[in-house]
């Protein structure tokens, strides 16, 4: 057993740390969030140049042969800076599904340019009724000549405003909520029949509601096998969950550091408020929570490519439960210990708090994953 980073991984960590330090000072981030896209093309180009967009993919797929640990290292630093570039929807989700299920032609047409920073993706799975059930899909794809016609609605599609391609989860057969009968389609974001309603999210990302009205795609738009997408989707989402957990550990480190600094300097009753035992103990609990979050994230990153699907799923859900719990504790505590300043827009604390809150709600909150983990553990 060895839990230390390799030299290459350390270099990656240093580079990601430097990127965040140079590009994501808090006031800079505010400016980036206010741009039209909500992220910076020059930052994206730099990520491509540094090899981050391809690091987790095999050399066969045009990548650099890394994996979940590399993703974890970068996401953790992104969390520290509340980075806004669409790494998760494009690389982890879009890239992940294409690498896993894509044909040679699809990899050439989509994955290769993505690694070069020339293509971005969005993953459209959620519908109004879906909650956290990945199989609760009613957007329909019906056969149309050699191709397909897509009609229905998708919600909270992150990065849809900037994406070149939207990867759509559609029902091709089966009944509501059946895992069998789901198919993935890669659709040109500008395809006729797609209507977008764009908006910012609570945590300054961009997303859209999408309506598909008889959107025609060719047979080559199918990603993977017809009717058999569920396993690919679940696995990609579990990878995304682990990446989100890493991002959350970065957020927790940053918010804890800011809070520690604040209670050391803010004076009331003639002393720094960090002299009061009630705050000391709460700060210790924050620190402990962040440690647990980091541990579970590392464990999940090490297990998420395991051969056994139960091991993978339990690892993702287990880490998500911990991140939900720790993120809430650190976020709420940081706000409380900052007093009124913690609920202002002015300080970064409220922004980390918002991101941690949204991470809990993405792909299933603490309660959802506790149930999923429990069911998997009981079945074993």
């Amino acid at each position, binding site marked *: 057993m060895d839990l230390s980073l390799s030299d290459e991984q350390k270099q990656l960590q240093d580079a990601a740390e430097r990127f965040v330090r140079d590009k994501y000072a808090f006031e800079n981030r505010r400016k980036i969030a206010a741009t039209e896209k909500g992220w910076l093309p020059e930052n994206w180009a730099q990520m491509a140049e540094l090899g981050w967009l391809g690091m987790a993919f095999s050399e066969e797929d045009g990548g650099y042969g890394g994996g979940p640990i590399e993703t974890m290292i970068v996401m953790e630093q992104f969390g520290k800076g509340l980075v806004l570039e669409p790494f998760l929807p494009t690389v982890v989700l879009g890239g992940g599904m294409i690498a896993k299920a894509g044909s040679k032609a699809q990899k050439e047409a989509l994955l290769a340019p993505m690694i070069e920073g020339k293509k971005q993706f969005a993953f459209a799975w959620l519908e109004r009724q879906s*909650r956290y059930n990945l199989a609760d899909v009613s957007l329909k794809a019906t056969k149309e000549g050699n191709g397909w016609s897509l009609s229905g609605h998708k919600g*909270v599609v992150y990065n849809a405003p900037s994406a070149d391609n939207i990867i759509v989860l559609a029902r091709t057969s089966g009944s509501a*909520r059946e895992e069998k009968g789901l198919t993935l389609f890669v659709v040109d974001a500008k395809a006729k029949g797609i209507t977008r309603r764009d*908006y910012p999210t*609570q945590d300054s990302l961009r997303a859209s509601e999408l309506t598909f009205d008889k959107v025609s795609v060719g047979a080559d738009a199918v990603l993977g096998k017809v009717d058999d997408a569920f396993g690919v989707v679940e696995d990609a989402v579990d990878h995304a969950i682990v990446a989100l957990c890493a991002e959350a550990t970065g957020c927790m480190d940053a918010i804890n550091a800011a809070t520690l600094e604040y209670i050391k300097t803010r004076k009331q009753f003639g002393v720094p408020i960090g002299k009061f035992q*009630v705050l000391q103990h709460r700060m210790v609990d924050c620190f402990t929570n962040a440690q647990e979050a980091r541990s579970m994230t590392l464990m999940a990153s090490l297990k998420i490519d395991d051969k056994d699907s139960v091991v993978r799923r339990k690892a993702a859900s287990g880490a998500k439960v911990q991140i939900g719990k720790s993120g809430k504790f650190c976020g709420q505590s940081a706000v409380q210990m900052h007093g009124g300043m913690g*609920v*202002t827009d002015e300080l970064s604390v409220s922004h980390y708090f918002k991101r941690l809150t949204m991470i809990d709600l993405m792909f299933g909150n603490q309660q959802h994953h506790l149930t999923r983990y429990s069911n998997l553990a009981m079945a074993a």
Partner: protein
Amino acid sequence: MDLALKPEHKAFADEVRAFARANLSAATKAKTFSGKHYDKDDHIQWQQALGRQGWLAYTWPKKYGGPGWDVTQRFLFENVLAEEGAPRIIPFGPKMVGPVIYTFGTDEQKERFLPGIRSSEVSWCQGYSEPGAGSDLASLRTRAVREGDHYIVNGQKTWTSFAHWGDWIFCLVRTNPDAKPQEGISFLLIDMKTPGVTVRPIIMVDGAHHVNDVFLDNVKVPVANRIGKEGEGWTCAKFLLANERLGIAEVPASKRGVRSLRDIARAEPANGATLADDPAFTAQIADLDLQVQALEMSELRALSTMALGGAPGPEVSTLKIRGSEIQQRITELAMEAVGEYAAPYQPGMLFQDTNETPIGPDHAPPAAPRYFNFRKTSIYGGSNEIQKNIVSKMVLGL
């Protein structure tokens, strides 16, 4: 001892309900149930209607123009108004400075200020906290120097809710820098139109503007605007804070919150059914429901002590602590109920009259912003840490 209402109390509740239905605008009411922010008119129109009825200053004795209600009537009044979707009464005039003025003020001050408070013709805000004086309020540094029959006031107040709407501000100021912290403080009423008063907005986590910094730069305040003796402002301050802690538990709003959570659970789809069919979720609502009942009964016990002539004791701090935690938990569950649809940020649906359709269900737009915003409830009015210090010292003698 009896929990049941007497017939005259039932008639009273009916009267309050009829009044609310006749006087509360449909638009204001809709904002309450959809979690939208009120604008100034929502508050003022409603409060002035209450004022005309003689009900705005509903906690005041008859002698000062209040209705002289008993504890049961106040309880019914607050609950019926919450059920009917009335905005909370902005407390700074009728619940805070009004009682200070009739308790500590001169007859001249009572005549001058109380009518405008009772009618809501005059809006008030609170100048307590300062950048360096939050939990440690007594360390406040805003300085008032006597010059003939005026004070010249210099300093900065912060977290001042509705200062941008306020006509007057009541301020704690330091009149004697050499005395012990609590002994050098005086209680001043300042007209916001006085030269040297500047208001600067503070934007909160949810993008809302309710609170402000208030800068006081050589503001000339007549000595006649001081309530109580010079150097005895801390007595007024403590009296006011004890009253504040009683109302701050927000029990009627939390009861409405629990009802609304159940409505949301019935409306939220989940696995082909609704969240109402998910026992893990509904049990969390039930847990909150019971917490609200315990809080309500504790508040009624405190009020009934007051009705027998006692003053609210330091144990009301426990009501503030639990009240704030319950409010926060309600907003947390309302957000979790919405799931990923809590993510879209829709300021138009929060702050403006708009014909836009919301993204997600109607209850989605305010869900996350309210959760973020309500973190303030365990901070304002004396943080929960300070409240616990009060209970451990004053009640438990630790």
